[in-house]
C-alpha cells in the first residue's frame, strides 16, 4: 500500500541474549523502548500511539503481553494496542493509525523469550489443529519439508544452503546483537552432520531471547527530530492458505505479492534485510521479493544469527532504517515472516531522500 502521509522510522533499538535466566520479558522491554525513544529525539509524552507484538505461547500463559506495558510508561493513559504477531505487524498497524490522521507518531515494541519452552514444539500449535498439529511436526520439520520441496524444484543443493549460512555467520561477526557468528567456510559447514534433512543446524536460526523497539513519525514530526529519516515508501502484508500441501512450498506467493504492492521494484535497492529463519527461506524470498544479484542482503547476519522471537521481523526494518538514517544506504527493503513455511509475509520499502 502506498502512503497518504509520509511516515518515517526515526529511532530503533534491540536487545538479544541466549537463554537469559536473569531478566524477564519486561526487563528486555524497558531498555529498548527507552533507547529507541531517546534515539528518536522525541519525548515519551509526545508519542501518540503505543503498540506491541508478542505471543503468549512463548511464556505459556494468557495475557502475558499485558505486563510488557509496565516497561513502556503508560501514564497518563496511553492509546495502546497489541498484535499476537511479530512487532513488524504492530508497526504496520501503527503506520495505518498515522495514515488515518489520528496520531502523528508511535512507539512499537516486540518481545519474546524463546528459551522458556521448546520453541520448535510451541510453533507446532499454530498449524491446523485437526490433521497437522495432532502429528506434532516441529517448526523445523515443516521448514525441512519446504527446504526439500525447494531443492527438488530448483535443482539447488545443500551447498547453496551452506553458502547462505556461511555468509550470514561471517556477516554477523560485525553485529553486536548476533548470538551466533563465525568465520566459517561453506566446506566447513558442509562437513557438519545433516540434522533435519536436508538442513543442518547451521541452516536453522538460533533460539534467541530479546526485544526491539522502533519509533515512527509522520511528515514534519519526523523531519523535526531526525536529520535523515528512513521514510516508509511502501508497506504491505499478505498471507497464503494454511494448508501446507495446497501451497507450492518452493515459492512464497504472499511474499511476492506483498513486495509488488510495497513497490520493491520501483527503484534500485542498496540493502535488503530478509527475515529468513532457515537458509532455504532466504533463497525462496530473494526470488519472491525480486532482489537482484549484487544487492547487499542481510548485512546484519539476519535471523539465522539472531532470532529474537516476535521481534526478529521488526529488527529487519530497524536494521535497514539504521543504514538509511546514518547515510550508508539510500533505499532498502525489509521483510518479516510469520507462520509455518513462510505463510505470512510483510514487506517494507524504506528510503532516505525525499
Amino acid at each position, binding site marked *: 500500500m502506498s502512503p497518504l502521509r509520509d511516515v518515517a522510522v526515526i529511532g530503533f533499538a534491540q536487545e538479544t541474549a541466549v537463554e*537469559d*535466566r*536473569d*531478566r*524477564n*520479558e*519486561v*526487563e528486555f522491554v*524497558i*531498555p529498548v*523502548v*527507552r533507547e529507541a525513544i531517546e534515539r528518536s529525539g522525541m519525548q*515519551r509524552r509526545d508519542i501518540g500511539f503505543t503498540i506491541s507484538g508478542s505471543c503468549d*505461547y512463548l*511464556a*505459556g*500463559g494468557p495475557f502475558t503481553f499485558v*505486563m510488557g*506495558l*509496565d*516497561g*513502556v*510508561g*503508560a*501514564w497518563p493513559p496511553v492509546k495502546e494496542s497489541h498484535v499476537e504477531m511479530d512487532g513488524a505487524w504492530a508497526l504496520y498497524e501503527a503506520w495505518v493509525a498515522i495514515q488515518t490522521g489520528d496520531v502523528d507518531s508511535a512507539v512499537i515494541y516486540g518481545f519474546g523469550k524463546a528459551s*522458556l*519452552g*521448546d520453541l520448535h*514444539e*510451541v510453533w507446532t*500449535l499454530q498449524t491446523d*489443529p*485437526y*490433521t*497437522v*498439529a*495432532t*502429528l*506434532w*511436526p516441529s517448526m523445523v*520439520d*515443516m521448514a*525441512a*519439508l*519446504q*527446504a*526439500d*520441496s525447494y531443492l*527438488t524444484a530448483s535443482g539447488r543443493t545443500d551447498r547453496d544452503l551452506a553458502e547462505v549460512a556461511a555468509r550470514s555467520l561471517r556477516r554477523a561477526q560485525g553485529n553486536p546483537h548476533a548470538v551466533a557468528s563465525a568465520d566459517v567456510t561453506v566446506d566447513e559447514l558442509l562437513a557438519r552432520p545433516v540434522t*533435519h*534433512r*536436508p*538442513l543442518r543446524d547451521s541452516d536453522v536460526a538460533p533460539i534467541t531471547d530479546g526485544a526491539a523497539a522502533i519509533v515512527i513519525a509522520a511528515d514534519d514530526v519526523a523531519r523535526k527530530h531526525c536529520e535523515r529519516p528512513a521514510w516508509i515508501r511502501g508497506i504491505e502484508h499478505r498471507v497464503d*492458505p*494454511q*494448508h*501446507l*500441501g*495446497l501451497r507450492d*512450498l518452493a515459492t512464497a506467493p504472499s511474499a511476492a505479492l506483498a513486495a509488488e504492492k510495497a513497490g520493491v521494484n520501483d527503484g534500485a535497492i542498496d540493502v535488503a534485510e530478509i527475515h529468513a529463519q532457515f537458509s532455504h527461506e532466504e533463497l525462496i524470498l530473494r526470488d519472491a521479493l525480486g532482489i537482484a544479484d549484487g544487492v547487499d542482503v542481510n548485512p546484519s547476519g539476519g535471523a539465522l544469527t539472531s532470532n529474537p522471537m516476535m521481534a526478529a521481523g521488526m529488527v529487519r526494518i530497524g536494521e535497514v532504517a539504521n543504514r538509511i538514517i546514518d547515510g550508508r544506504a539510500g533505499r532498502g527493503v525489509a521483510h518479516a515472516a510469520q507462520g509455518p513455511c513462510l505463510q505470512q509475509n510483510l514487506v517494507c520499502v524504506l528510503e532516505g531522500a525525499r
Partner: protein
Amino acid sequence: MTAPLVEHHVLEYPGGYTRSIGPALSRYLGGLRDGKIVGVRLTDGRVMVPPTEYDPITAATIDDYVEVGPAGTVTAWTWVSDPRPGKHHLDHPFAFALVRPDGADTAMVHVVDAPQDAISVGMRVRPRWKAERVGYVTDLEAWVPLADGAAADPAPANRGEGANDEPVTGITTPIRLEYDINAGTAAGKYLLGLAEGKILGARAEDSDQVYVPPRGSDPTTGSPTTIEVEVADTGTVTTFCIVNVPGLSEAAPEIPYVCAQILLDGGNTPWFGLIQGLPADDVRMGLRVHAIWADELKADASNIKWFEPTGEPDAPYDDYKAYA
C-alpha cells in the same frame, strides 16, 4: 549474585482438548476410520486432501467429496531421528513427509515409516492402517513403501469399537507444553527478600513512588526502578471483600473470609492479602493490620499467611483515599 529463580511450568489441558470438527473433517476422519482417504473438489477442479468445507482460494462453499488413494507419492520428506514420547505416535525414527494420494492434486502432511535410505522424493507409498480405528488422524498409522507398479490393498476391516456407521463429530487432542519460567531480576530480588522475612519494593530515580512487588520499571514512566526500598509488614486496609463462595483449592480458608487490598507502610501500591483475627463483619477500610508470616520462610508468595489487626486506631481516610 544469587542463582536466578526458575520454576517448571506445564501447560496442559487434562484429558486433552475437545474439538468439534464440522462436516468436511467428519468425512475425512470418518473415512480414515473406515479405511478410506477422502478429499474434496475445489472450485478450480483440483482435488484437495484433507478436505475443508470452503475453498481456501475463493472461500466458496464446497462439498463434492472424492475418495482418493489409497496409494500415493512422496513429494518431500525429512527425517526424525529422535521421536518425542507423548507427541509422536511412532516410537522409532521415521520421516515427516508430504504425500500426494493418487487422484489428489495436493499433498498431505503425514509420516512415512521406512528406513531412511529407502525414502526418496517420488517414491510410491501405501497406507498402513491401524487394526482398531477410531476416527483420528493416526488411524492411517503411517505411509509405507509400495513397489513401483503395485496396487495398494484395501484397508483391513476395522476391529475397533468405533467400527460403526455413526458420523465422527469430534476429536480429543492432547496438548502439553513445558516451560522453565524465570522470575526476572526485580521479582527475583523481591522473592528472595521474602525468604528473609523482608518485603522489598523499588522506585525509580525520578519518582518517590515505591512499587511492591517491583517489576523492574515505574509503570507510569517506564523508568527503571533502580532504588531498592524495604517496606514495613504493617499497613492499612484500603478496600476489602467478604467472600461467601467456597474456594476450589484445599488451601482456601473457610467461608466467610476476607480478602483485602493493603497499603503497606512505606509502599505506594496496595497489595493483596487475607484478613483474619477478627469477625468478617468487623473488617473495615482504614483498619491497621500486620503480616502473619509462615513458620518456614521460602522464596514465594506463601510466606505471608494473612494479616491481623495491630490494635492501632484506624487510619484517617485522607491517609489512603488516593488508593481506595
